[in-house]
């Protein structure tokens, strides 16, 4: 079980919860479970969500494991120049 912290727009999609517990082994599993649990998650995921694991931001490595006790934070996918 890992604790996930959500950024503002995602909280709207998840009924206002700032933190949720998910039993997910990696980012792919996490996204799959969030999509199943919250219908509003998929449109935001389509626009892009990044996952911060212990401060390191991952945008596309969905196979990245979510270590127990890690600080996991969902953020909007970033744009750069």
């Amino acid at each position, binding site marked *: 079980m890992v604790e996930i912290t959500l*950024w503002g727009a995602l909280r709207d999609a998840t009924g206002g919860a700032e933190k949720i517990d998910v039993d997910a082994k990696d980012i792919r599993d996490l996204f799959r479970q969030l999509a199943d649990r919250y219908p509003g998650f998929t449109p935001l995921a389509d626009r892009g969500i990044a996952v*911060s694991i212990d401060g*390191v*931001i991952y*945008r596309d*490595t969905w196979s990245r494991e979510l270590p127990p006790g890690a600080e996991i934070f969902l*953020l909007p996918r970033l*744009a*750069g*120049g």
Partner: protein
Amino acid sequence: MTMGFDPTYTARTFTSVGTRPVRPDGVDKVTGRARYGADYNLAGQLVGAILRSPHAHARIRNIDTTKAEMLPGVKAVITAADLPDLTNGNAGLFDMLDNCMARGKVFYDGHAVAAVAAVDAQTAREALALIVVDYEILPHVTDVDAAMQPSAPLLHATVFTSGVDPKPATPSNIANRSQYGHGDVDAGFAAADLVIARSFKTEQSHQGYIEPHACVANVNPDGSSELWVCTQGHFVFRQQCAELLGLDVSRLRVTSSEIGGGFGGKTHIWAEPVALALSRKAARPVKLVMSREAVFRATGPTSATSIDVKIGVKKDGTITAASADLRYTCGPYVGPWAELGAMTAFACYALENVRTIGYEVLVNRPKTAAYRAPSAPMAAFAVESVIDEIAAKLGINALDMRIKNAAKQGTRASYGPVYGPIGIGPTLEAAKNHPHMSAPLGKNQGRGLACGFWFNFGGQTCTSLNIGIDGTVNLAVGTVDVGGSRASLSLVAAEELGIPYGQVTAIVADTASLGHNDMTDGSRGTFSSSMATISSARNAIAIMRARAAKMWDIPAENVAWENGHAVAKGDTHGHLAPLSIKDIAAKASTTGGPIAGHSELVADGAGVSFATHICDIEVDPETALSRIIRYTVIQDAGKAVHPAYVEGQLQGGATQGIGWALNEEYVYGADGRLQNAGYLDYRVPVSSDLPMIDTQILEIPNPNHPYGIRGVGETSIVPPLAAIANAVSNATGTRMTHIPMSPPRILAALDAQKGH
């Protein structure tokens, strides 16, 4: 990630990485042989031209192209009708389509409404003049604060502010609200000994790349197509153009030209779908080159902003609370710009109580594009200005106050996550110890200091490393070389293979030659492609070890790779002379055929980036003309692969920031038309305006890259607006709150100070 590839940093002594060889593209560029977007031609090629709206906001009642189509030499005329909506509900893609060619309404001065392809440029211009557009002019709004008013002219009746609860009942130019932060801001301000709140404005600037957008498109009747284009991301351009035109991705081959600057402005499609549509209709190749005026009116500016910052502190300088409201223009289409400002504004500091709110505001200006650490410089300007003002009020050193409050490992970032190892502290300490900080100042001079933050990221990356039959090496990469990556990646390949830099030649391959690559953006070019290059080289080495084993007729596990050679290991094989890449390549045809190493991976774990800048400025008290006297950039590069290029990135970012801080701005008339669409009236700094910009590269290895590399392309533009504003404020004794600090603005501030 390529199977079996471990990107974890391993300390090592470098041979090639960290050296400064001659740049491989240098001779072509200085002799004029390098081929940029406009330097490519196809047989039977036509000249494309675009008709642009003279109005900031208007409904298109009718477009009559009859006379243009009848003009001899005109081969195709297109409007939005020739670019049917294939976006299938994808709002972002639809905005790109609408921006490339207006559909029913024009949203800014310069918005494309029609295009022609003709046998020469004169005929194309004559044809544009024959197109009759019937406009119903609508009220417009270009100012960010004015656009937020309920009475403002509305750009889209379909836009309702997202991110607020409950959902608004009426449409608005405020497309989105986003919020970041943690703690109890009100309690934090209540606990403060001093609270300062200030409002700031920054004007819209352009990336100012020297090379205008240019492309050559060729759509064959059988649907196979090619595009030669100046871009930061030819794979992404291919995907977006294919989606907008209904082409198969695999049948559109895109080749990236040399690039005369991008800085984020060439991550967006503007004219390319139009060129493809013209070619499709004319059944001929079409070259489309934007004029400088068109570049200013219709591409890539950054946001204009309006920002309120409030910071509370204890008497010792400890920040107890911080908040910011950030309003950013997006042009006519929603973007993430204010949100990025809200995320980055306080990222340098360890704050218990922080709240930022971003508002994406739609205005009648061209679509905002990324510009080097997009949105962070304006937020840093506002925050770092207030930090300096607080330090002055408390009578403490502004640098010490920053060190006291700097984020460190374990700090919860204002945008949410807890930081791992980060480099803000070391850049501040380096600034404190830098001789620049203690150098004396002259009359009318002031010194300013500021910090900056940017995320950096990686992305999808694919490379191919081919061993030639003579043992020399070709490296094919898919990230466009915007800042010297062919040199840095050749150094990385040479390092990994153990051969001299001169034996490696890197090219940017076209989209048919490699798997998908994301853009060169987010400071990712060298970070990502070096990771894939290392992986490719290791794969090639594994093959060469196996080939050497065959040549020696010994087990492959008895062959090691040392200093560019296969070396036989073990008591029974120690007499065998090492085999070089040249030796192995010469026998490749009989040991299994061609030798190559490939890599396909997602480069993640780029690591966040920080910088500290120091600026000395002299302000003429009569004319308010500012002159940068001395400028120092301190930034963490993880590992500087080619230090001269890294220094160039740091100097380039600072230079662009200096121009933005002192001169550059879009000036709109009351009619909503851009008044200064050219480099005579939109002045960027040139070499004679600037001192030598000093750099200090810190090398704190990135734990998520085999060589410890971090991106370096963007962060250097974040601190300059603030550092220069603090310097001007210290030189004049007047707090500057409006960027650019052009002479009229400084004079007005000085007059206000004198009570005029």
